[in-house]
């Protein structure tokens, strides 16, 4: 469960998120969409506590919150295996729980899951952007978290890898009943993973509904977004 109430956040006096409220039940996936710069990444960082909110409330159910970062954020001095097992080896409450052999097994398992078997010894700089993304996905889910925040998990991936990740997001949700937020620009990701969609514009929620409603609704914002049109209510930065 993730519950956001009257959340407000401003950078340098400019409100990026303005009085936002929504709730995600456990086992539900929310797609967060919106213009570039509309505060989607900011929202995720607020939820996992990386930045401080100005006002409002954020409650999450107990357990870990995981985040897949927009630009992967892999530890570049560690190889793939050490990246994935980082939390298992370094977290104070987990560090003595797993033997090296168990860790090896978990890493291999997670790598297979994201379709990257056998790259344990490679360093992040030796991987393509899409491969890095998938490794960061594996790293985030290694502790089997209760809430998962995905910041553009499929952007920059080929359609097949995208589907692989999307399928896994769904599978993970079904298996662990995790609440997830998927920030994405891709209609395919919304369609395949989301139970509900929230669209942000200028700090406010301008649409909330199912993916199906998003496609069919007469909402000017979603129409513009779905049709990738320059004409519509969203003009920020378009002059």
């Amino acid at each position, binding site marked *: 469960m993730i519950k956001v109430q009257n959340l407000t956040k401003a950078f340098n006096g400019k409100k990026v998120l303005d009085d936002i409220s929504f709730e995600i039940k456990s086992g539900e996936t929310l797609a967060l969409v919106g213009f570039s710069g509309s505060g989607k990444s900011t929202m995720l960082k607020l939820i996992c506590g*990386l930045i401080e909110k100005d006002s409002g409330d954020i409650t999450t159910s107990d357990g870990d919150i995981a985040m897949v970062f927009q630009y992967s954020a*892999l530890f*570049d001095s560690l190889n793939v295996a050490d990246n994935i097992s*980082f939390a298992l080896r370094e*977290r104070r*409450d987990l560090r003595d729980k797993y033997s090296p052999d168990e860790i090896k097994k978990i890493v291999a398992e997670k790598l297979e899951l994201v379709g990257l078997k056998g790259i344990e010894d490679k360093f992040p700089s030796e991987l393509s952007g899409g491969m890095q993304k998938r490794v960061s996905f594996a*790293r985030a889910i290694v502790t089997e978290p209760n809430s998962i925040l995905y910041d553009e998990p499929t952007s920059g991936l080929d359609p097949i890898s995208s589907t692989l990740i999307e399928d896994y997001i769904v599978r993970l949700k079904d298996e662990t009943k995790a609440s997830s937020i998927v920030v994405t620009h891709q209609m395919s990701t919304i369609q395949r993973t989301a139970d509900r969609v929230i669209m942000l514009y200028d700090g406010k929620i301008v649409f909330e509904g199912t993916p199906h409603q998003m496609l069919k609704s007469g909402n000017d914002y979603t129409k513009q977004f779905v049709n990738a049109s320059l004409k519509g209510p969203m003009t920020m930065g378009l002059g």
Partner: protein
Amino acid sequence: MINSIGKYYKHSATRLIFEGMAKQFCLFLETLGMIGMHAVTAARGLGFVDKKELMYQCYRFGITSLPITLSIVSMSIVIVTSQVALEMVKQGGGHFVGMAVSILVVRELAVIMSGFALISMIGSSLASEIATMRVTEQIDAMRVLKVEPVANLFVPRILSGMLMMPVVCVIASVVGVLAGAVTAELAAGLSYRAFFESAWLGIFAKDMFVSLGKAVCFGACITLISCSCGFEAKGGAKGVGEATTKAVVWSFVAIVIVDMFFAIAFFF
């Protein structure tokens, strides 16, 4: 009168200078507080240090830097000795050369020159490494994985500085005195025997202990300041550059200040 001063102040360069200075002073205090806070957080994480990582950081701090450190220390001894040895011999003070050199090396040159060398090599590399981790969100990723980044990154690095700086300092002292002996022989024709007999008289246990204490403090200052400055980096490549510069400047100033306090405390 006050009014006209006020008017003058409002439009003048004086205002700019004063306000600029005030702002710089605030920034200075801010940095000082930031470093202090990190020191406290790091101290709390002391018990959780990863042995393997500590070994690696010790190797990085103490061993990879050794060739440059020893070159810098011995070359500065060569410079000093070649300047004074011949004059001292000419004035009939040849039997003081070894003593002068060993006092200089053990008390000051070995430790401060190693400090400067280590700032430029290890301090800058620690700062840019951690700053890059900051601007590429690796530190955020660590926090989301519930691993305290200050404890995880700072503790092995600071400990490595405190452990290895005295080792570097001892090696540098030995090499420094040897470099002095060779220089005195070449520049002033002083025999090795005369040099070392005199050098021995200049080496005191107290000096060595004070220098080791200084080395521990230098090692802590360099690593703590470099890690802290890197940790607070903002923005992209430019932020990494600024953080590295700040780390180097602050480390330089810090070890000179620490050195001064040691001098006041032990040799006044």
